């Protein structure tokens, strides 16, 4: 187990290294002189330009810039935001937490709603229930989250006055309360995805011989269900791992709609402002979360599937 995790961790770190290079390269993809971009509309004096070049190490060769940046990143320093002149780490600290909270909550919602529905639909494949949920899920995948968010806001925020309309509250429980509607909005499309994945996985397990065999020897529905779910868990967990990453990266529209100060909204504005250090940091952090989720899924896989344990590393 330890060896398995160690090897996967090493692979993940390599992956992140490669990603960091891509992410850093984004800065250099930006058209024009980065220093001019950093200065924005101000009338740049040669001294100011030189100062900026020094501050952002633009006078160094590209690879050296990259290694210096990487070194900083490894020490959790992401540079200084151009827009607000604040260390990016400070800027991101709370926002990452909020976005993680949001992602986590919608993930829980996704799993709590999408997965059971998927199981139920697969169990009754072809039934009216199955068709209804399947068709709704297809609509869920296509519905723009902005529109979903506003509809939810209108119904639950303004009309029924159950949930707050905007913002992230005052921390603690209040924040979780504020995140309910955004999380539902986010979970709407992705829950549909989770539903689909679960339904497919469970339906294909239900086709397996071991299910017929289990019934034939008198196992009850709930016993068979336990059998099937354990087997279906493997493909479902893999997909849900990806879903979590997707959620984390997909918070932009929801954060804008609900006025949440997470990293999605910050990213949108930072891109507009070409606040490259912030963009780099957010992209890298998001990619890291996705990669670590994949790692977690691998470990889970390892724990759940004895065959993988046996085979060990491929």
């Amino acid at each position, binding site marked *: 187990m330890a060896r398995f995790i160690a090897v996967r961790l090493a692979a993940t770190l390599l992956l992140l290294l490669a990603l960091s290079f891509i992410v850093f390269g984004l800065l250099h993809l930006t058209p024009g002189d980065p220093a001019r971009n950093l200065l924005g*509309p101000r009338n740049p004096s040669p001294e*100011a330009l030189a100062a900026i070049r020094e501050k952002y190490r633009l006078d160094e060769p590209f690879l050296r810039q990259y290694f210096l940046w990487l070194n900083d990143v490894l020490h959790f320093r992401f540079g200084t935001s151009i827009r607000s002149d604040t260390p990016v780490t400070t800027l991101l600290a709370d926002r990452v937490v909020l976005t993680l909270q949001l992602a986590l909550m919608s993930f829980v919602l996704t799993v709590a709603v999408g997965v059971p529905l998927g199981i139920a639909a697969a169990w009754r494949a072809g039934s009216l229930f199955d068709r209804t949920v399947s068709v709704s899920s297809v609509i869920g995948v296509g519905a723009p989250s902005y529109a979903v968010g506003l509809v939810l806001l209108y119904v639950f925020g303004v009309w029924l006055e159950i949930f*707050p309309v*905007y913002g992230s509250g005052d921390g603690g429980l209040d924040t979780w309360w504020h995140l309910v509607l955004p999380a539902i909005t986010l979970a709407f499309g992705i829950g549909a995805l989770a539903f689909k994945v679960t339904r497919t996985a469970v339906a294909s397990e239900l086709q397996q011989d071991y299910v017929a065999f289990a019934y034939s020897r008198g196992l009850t529905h709930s016993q068979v269900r336990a059998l099937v779910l354990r087997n279906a868990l493997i493909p479902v967990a893999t997909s849900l791992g990806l879903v979590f990453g997707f959620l984390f990266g997909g918070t932009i529209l929801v954060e804008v709609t609900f*006025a949440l100060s997470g990293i999605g*909204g910050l990213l949108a504005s930072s891109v*507009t402002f070409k606040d490259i250090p912030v963009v780099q940091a957010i992209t890298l952090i998001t990619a890291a979360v996705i990669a670590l989720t994949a790692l977690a899924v691998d470990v889970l896989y390892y724990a759940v599937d004895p065959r993988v344990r046996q085979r060990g590393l491929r």
Partner: protein
Amino acid sequence: MSQPLSVSRRALLQGAGGSALLLLIAACGDDNASVTTTGGTDGGEGIDTTGPATAEEIDTLTVAFPSSLSNIYPGQEAGNFNYYVAVLVAEALAAPDSTGKLVGALAESWTQPDATTYVYTLRSGVTFSDGSALTADDIVYSVGLAKDEAMSPNTAYYWANVDKAEKTADNEVTITLLSPDVAFEWGPVAANAMWVTAERFVTAAGGELGTPAALFTGTGPYKVTSFEPDKGVELERVDTYWGGKAPVKTVKIEFIPEETTRLLARKAGDIDMAISISLDQEQQWKDTDATDVLFAADRSYVGIDFNTAVEPFDDIHVRKAIALACDRATYVEKLINGHGEVATALTVPQQIESVVGDKAREMLAVVYDLPFDLEAAKAELALSKVPDGFSCKVGVSSSAPQVSQFFQALAATVKDMGITIEVEEMPVEQWYGTIGSPDWGLAYMWYFNATGDPAELISWFLAEGNPASYTSEEVAALLQQQREEADPALRVDLIIEAQRLAMEDIPYVPLWWGEAATAIDDAFTIDDFGSYTLLSPWTTRILTKG
């Protein structure tokens, strides 16, 4: 001349920097100085004048801004909304009154013994929000702070012409300029380029000012109790404020970037006031229960810039043809829902009203008055080097949808003349790059005046290095003259004459002067609401209706 230019650019940044998208401009016929209050539940007719307003204590006022702030010290981040917060917390030597005239703030009065020397007499009994007294040393320090490029990149340029600031008595500070500049009076104003604080606060802030970890402390009627970028600011009343106790005890400023969400927040009763609401949603705000919508000119100018150094715009016939094709009255009516007025000059009327009063529009009308006349436009194009038309592109900030629509409408109009205008939307930062760029012959300016100085825009737009690459010795001479003219009325004449002269060559086409809308719970009213309201401690003017 580089220093006014810098001011202007900073002011431009204020307007455009992330907030212009939400700064909605509105028109109000010709009587722009007055404020129209409409709304309420009855669908928005008439002016709500129920009962006299009283300065009753208001426990909490929740105000929604349409964009977020990442730093509340405007020296670091200068957007309109940073100013709206800053003026509640910190003050400077002078402040604009409701007409834009400068009156004393921390300075009781000031004198100008010669063209480059300003002597400010400080108000006594002023304390910081922590209770400590304000001293002349603090003023001197604050000038230094505003001048410091590292601490205040957004204001340093403004102070470049300042030779020194020194304490000349216990309650007196003298500021000396390198060269005469009448517009300097607007420097030590909290709505523009100075916020008085004390060295010990800045030291305590560890060099980072205006961040959540290092809030800045001033002498204003409020102190910041919490600030979370992208979320909101909370302000607490300072009971020792020299100007008296404000009626609102706690001001909560929330950042809600999505317009519809902000509207829903109001409908749910979560916010009391919303600044710069979307004009497209005017009716929905008005239809919201217990909500008044107030309009006031925001002293913004929107107009076309031709780069006269770029073909084919080096040809006056081309410029004139396009100018004649602009149906400005319709744009004002349709694109900004009538909340604004057709611009006739670079200077907006409110900049000169404090000097010339009601005659402002009449005086500005002489600057530019080309009518909408397609036939004339065609005739004009026929005279040009490109009689069969040409193609060009124009870069529009994605935060300025009305401008994008304007250019699309213009493009449709001039298509028959053989002119193809391709509108490209781009992030605001990239739009800056189009201004005065040789790659973009056709550009536009959406400019928010930061100060009340009448020459603010022309000292960029008509001066050397202007975005139109326009040069005229006569105009330059007039510009220099106004800079040193001490008599405000005569100065206004010079300013108008300079642009009138320049506009004969049509380097610019003024389109409209904008208006902004503020929504507020109809239990409250804002005393003497106008163009300058939000640039002075505005929450002190919020009163409860009887």
